């Protein structure tokens, strides 16, 4: 009798630790190996997305200019007043360095989201940049050795949303094309959610950078889903920006003289 009463309790106790573990597994696109695990429905952002209405300058959700501190406002003014030539030295993106966040979402190029059980991967067309958002509790990779263009992103699912915390940025990028600055203290929080039956992706950004902005401010961007068969084109920034001379163009075989004998690799 006591056993009959206790059995459901034991079963429930046994299952309790399983649920949070399986919660990280996406309901769709999960690798077959994980298909036997209990399924917990999480949103699936997989697909190809195209920005909708990409402004050059980020504004707060109520359309205001971000609350820049005085020194940062002066720096922003310098960025905006820069000539094309000056901009090449000020703006790393003109030299094909990564645009950083959220700026890369403002480029008029699609990006592909590939969702795994342990990570959400964003494959941008822009110079083939890949951003990996590690999902909390699934992997414990060693921390990045230093600050980077895209920072160190950690994500978790909260209901139908993906929430991403990113820190560890360098200060070599701008927040947008207009030159909004940020510092290494930038803490970017993203809230990803879909509407219109999964055809529209929305990302709400919360920008916390006490060295540059007087208060935390918010901005939002939207993206529309492209057809499943869409192929992300190969973008080569150094070619697009004309940073290579014509000599770098493919060489026809007939022009391959002088001939240099090549040792067969198996003789190395």
């Amino acid at each position: 009798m006591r056993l009959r009463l206790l059995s459901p309790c034991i079963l429930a106790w046994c299952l309790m630790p399983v649920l949070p573990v399986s919660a990280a597994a996406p309901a769709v696109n999960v690798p077959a190996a994980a298909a036997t695990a209990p399924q917990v429905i999480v949103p699936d952002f997989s697909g190809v997305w195209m920005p909708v209405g990409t402004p050059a300058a980020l504004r707060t959700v109520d359309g205001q200019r971000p609350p820049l501190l005085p020194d940062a406002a002066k720096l922003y003014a310098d960025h905006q007043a820069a000539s094309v030539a000056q901009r090449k030295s000020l703006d790393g993106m003109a030299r094909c360095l990564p645009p950083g966040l959220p700026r890369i979402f403002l480029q008029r190029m699609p990006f592909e989201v590939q969702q795994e059980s342990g990570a959400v991967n964003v494959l941008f067309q822009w110079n083939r940049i890949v951003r990996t958002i590690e999902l909390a509790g699934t992997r414990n990779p060693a921390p990045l050795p230093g600050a980077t263009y895209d920072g160190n992103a950690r994500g978790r699912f909260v209901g139908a949303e993906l929430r991403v915390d990113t820190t560890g940025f360098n200060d070599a990028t701008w927040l947008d094309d207009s030159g909004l600055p940020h510092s290494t203290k930038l803490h970017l929080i993203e809230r990803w959610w879909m509407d219109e039956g999964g055809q529209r992706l929305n990302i709400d950004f919360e920008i916390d950078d006490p060295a540059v902005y007087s208060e935390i401010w918010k901005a939002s961007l939207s993206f529309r889903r492209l057809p499943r068969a869409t192929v992300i084109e190969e973008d080569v920034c150094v070619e697009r920006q004309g940073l290579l001379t014509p000599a770098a163009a493919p060489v026809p075989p007939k022009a391959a003289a002088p001939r240099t004998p090549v040792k067969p690799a198996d003789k190395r």
Partner: protein
Amino acid sequence: MSGRTIFAAVLMCLLPISALQAADAAAGSQRPAAAASVAPRTSAQVRNLAGIWVVAEEPTSRRETVKAEFAVRFPPGVSAGPAAAQSLAESARLCVPTPFFGSSGGYSLRIIQTATQVTLISEENSRVHRIYLDRDFPEKLTPTYAGFTVGHWEGNTLVAETRGLRGAAGMLALPDYHVIERLRRGADGMTLEQDITINSSAYATPAQRSYRYFSRPDLRWQPSVCEEQPAPLVPKVSK
């Protein structure tokens, strides 16, 4: 039923779950090698190539004989060597993508797998290699550095075919590259084997290379930024 029996039953339930959680925390979706010795791996498991991989050596075997008339020209001061190695180095220096003729030492490889696509991404120079499982080659193929790749499973091996490669600077710039790649997880589940066959009129016989990778789920994967190099991006390829 005594209290001791109930306690033992609860303990039995908890132990395997704790072990599972520990494995998940340490290795993400990868199961530790020890699990392979406990139970045979299912076809679903061996068909899962996802993970972070580091090349064991570069490569484990290689056979490549370039026809003399297609020998690559090298910049002054650069010694001649295997054509592919030279061309890859040149392309990497220029920050243009390179076709996925195997990985390079020192850079890890991330494989993302979904039902319709297997994607190989190298930390080196944002090399993205998409293998589509749900489509055929398009009728009109615009040549790109990475080419266009379709794949299918033959048993536990992913067989991928790449066409539409364009030549990179300093490379054997031929339009007829046709690459067959075979990827499989090793029997222990912790290694990845990659056999590549490159067909081209540049080769006397199809070039062949094999690579082996080790699973490293603990690694923080971080792509390099080629464009950070201080040298100018102007190529020095002689005419």
